[in-house]
């Protein structure tokens, strides 16, 4: 079964707005990662947060992790049309990498 579950399944916003996606998982993890997938392409790694970290930033990305709730969120600030893609969380449990079904983000210009 899937380890991570993203919410919402789809999100549509205007350029310049912030986008927030959530991920819930079921078991203890070593770390949690977020990946992006453009249509027809493979996934690309965005950011990793370890189980002992609560927040991490990378450019316009901000990731939080709450291990007590087994949840994570990805915030993209000041979104651009080029951010349109699917975003997946992945949990790493002893090298077994499991992905959720993803959030489809559409940023309208």
């Amino acid at each position: 079964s899937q380890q991570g579950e993203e919410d919402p399944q789809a999100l549509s916003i205007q350029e310049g707005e912030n986008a927030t996606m959530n991920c819930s998982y079921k078991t203890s993890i070593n770390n949690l990662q977020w990946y992006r997938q453009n249509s027809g392409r493979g996934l690309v790694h965005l950011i990793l947060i370890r189980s002992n970290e609560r927040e991490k930033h990378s450019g316009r990305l901000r990731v939080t992790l709450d291990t007590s709730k087994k949840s994570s969120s990805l915030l993209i600030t000041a979104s651009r049309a080029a951010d349109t893609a699917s975003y997946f969380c992945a949990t790493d449990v002893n090298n077994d990498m499991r992905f959720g079904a993803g959030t489809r983000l559409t940023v309208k210009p």
Partner: protein
Amino acid sequence: DAGITQSPRHKVTETGTPVTLRCHQTENHRYMYWYRQDPGHGLRLIHYSYGVKDTDKGEVSDGYSVSRSKTEDFLLTLESATSSQTSVYFCAISPAFDRSGANVLTFGAGSRLTVL
């Protein structure tokens, strides 16, 4: 996708025929993975390898086998393809654990398989 190539990129086959997908890497990474991606299911792990001739099953391994005789190649075989195996298949690679234990995947471009 630099360092990792999948072949074929597209294949149409008939039910009952064997199919082999190839993943080739030039990064000398230890770990290699095969995932399938289907609408509503995201990516699901089929098999992975942690070294030459060392493989393990993922969550949807039934109907699939793998082989890794060289570091650079990881083959996924459908012994007798079924329509339920119509999917997009992604290969991914990662280096061995670093000191902090992080394991970041690099993905290939995918292989679209249609089983009629």
